[in-house]
């Protein structure tokens, strides 16, 4: 299931503005990689280049290579729709489809990919909701709208929706920043379970969170406002937080930033 990501020489633009500059890194399968860095350093932009969501923004374009087990996502002839079916994404604000029931939300991606029998669909929806630690809370109201759930439940519903299609990689863009500490804890526990099956990349502003959930951490920074963001270093999370090799990283994680 899980695949390795190899990024080389990747730059992303918004129109003529270069948002991230020449990033190269490797993300191992079945691991959690956290992206940290100040606001505007391009970590979310970089995340969105990994499933070709960046180019959805008007003026968004990308240079460089992203290899998923050796296959370039940006090779000509690759349909971005197929890339996004392989690389799932969870967003900052929980965004279940408001007009769909809980069941239909989880089944939404499956229904895009093909036709399933009702019994298969039931099975996958249950498995996905269990995988997102949400099954016990919603099993009696699967036909109720997903927007009636609490914020934390909605975010786990979005995770269930993303893992229902069995992606190779799961991207998470600050998945806990809109949630309270208890819901955050639930999601962090979930990330620990999900990494058995998926390659996970998570953007977070919360350094304790990065330290708690990730195996490797990448620190992004920008020289000044208006300058492109750069990857400063990527290493084992323990090393980044105890003994980083670059001074800027240490300044940032110890709060001596800016």
């Amino acid at each position, binding site marked *: 299931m899980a695949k390795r990501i190899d990024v080389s020489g990747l730059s992303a633009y918004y129109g003529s503005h270069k948002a991230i500059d020449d990033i190269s890194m490797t993300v191992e399968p079945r691991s959690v990689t956290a992206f940290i860095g100040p606001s505007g350093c391009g970590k979310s932009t970089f995340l969105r280049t990994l*499933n070709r*969501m960046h180019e*959805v923004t008007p003026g968004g374009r990308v240079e460089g290579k992203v290899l998923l087990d050796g296959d370039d996502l940006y090779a000509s002839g690759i349909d971005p*729709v*197929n*890339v*996004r*079916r*392989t690389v*799932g*994404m969870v*967003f900052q*604000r929980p*965004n*279940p*489809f*408001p*007009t*769909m029931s809980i069941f239909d939300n989880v089944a*939404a*991606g499956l229904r*895009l*990919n093909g036709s399933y029998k009702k019994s298969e669909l039931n099975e996958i929806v249950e498995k996905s909701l269990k995988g997102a630690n949400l099954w016990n809370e919603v099993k009696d109201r699967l036909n109720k*709208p997903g*927007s*009636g759930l609490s914020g934390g439940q909605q975010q786990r519903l*979005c995770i269930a*929706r*993303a893992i229902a*299609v069995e992606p190779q990689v799961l991207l998470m863009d600050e998945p806990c920043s809109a949630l309270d500490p208890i819901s955050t804890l639930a999601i962090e526990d979930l990330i620990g379970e999900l990494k058995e099956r998926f390659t996970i990349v998570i953007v977070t502003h919360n350094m304790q969170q990065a330290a708690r959930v990730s195996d490797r951490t990448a620190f992004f920074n920008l020289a000044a406002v208006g300058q492109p963001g750069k990857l400063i270093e990527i290493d084992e999370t323990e090393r980044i937080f105890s003994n980083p090799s670059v001074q800027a990283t240490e300044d940032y994680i110890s709060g001596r930033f800016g």
Partner: protein
Amino acid sequence: MDIATQTETAPPPPPPATTEQQRASRGATRPGDRIFLGLSRGSGIVLLVIMAAIAAFLTYRAALALSDNTGNFLTTFEWDANAIPPKFGIAVLAFGTVVSSIIALVIAVPVAVGIALFISHYAPRKLAVPIAYVIDLLAAVPSIVYGLWGALVVAPNLTGFYSWLDTVLGWTGIFEYQGGAPRSLMTVGILLAIMILPIITNVSREVFLQAPKMHEEAALALGATRWEVIRMSVLPFGRSGIISASMLGLGRALGETIAVATVLSPTFLISASLLDPGGGTFAQNIASKFNEASEYGRDALIASGLVLFLITLLVNGAARMIIARRKEYSGANA
């Protein structure tokens, strides 16, 4: 005072509020507030008074006419309101009004939604702006111009299309075409469709543009194609907007007068085929008969106007019900 000191010392009991303080807390003492309150309340009341006055006027004059009517107001296929005793009924008008408006909606809504989606989600900006502008222009054309164009250009050119409809769907009876001038309810419906297209397009486009980006991205991230994104996030969000837009269009189609009067060759017959010339609508009938009508005749026409008023109210009420029924699933609570 910070929170810590607040919790340590019990707050003193609030002094009994004087009437002045109460008024101040309602915020009505400032002149700006008072003026605005007066203005908005006044506008609301004026609106209600105007509605009530129209309803009272229609009902009163209609009652006069109906008391003298020797025909059945609902089922008579005749309009002899100037005769003594008068004999008239609205069956043909109601049929013509409703049928031509439904034809207009059936044609206009899919086209308008298509154009709106094209402008909001498909067209590059360079193309979207001029198209939106042309659509606005379409709304500015006076209805008499539509009527003349419909009678002189559209209708004569529809004979070929109607012959084709007859060969394909003639067996249903609804689309039987005998030849002759196509000044039929179908032609009126097609013309009305063009006339209500701008308003439905514009309202739908506005709603589609407001569809939350985060739901579109949710669909995209699941691997949805552009059409699937629209189906999963834009259309469900825009549903109530499309209904409201259609109702605005329907309101215009039901009440359209001069364009219908120019195109239709009015008869007091209901024909099974939509392509047969003849028929009539409330507004067209009032416009074409009002000048030569006697006192009784005018009251009879006003009675038919009251029915149109009621139909419009019913349509609006039904639309509101449809919108309210799906409120739980609307994007509003997300």
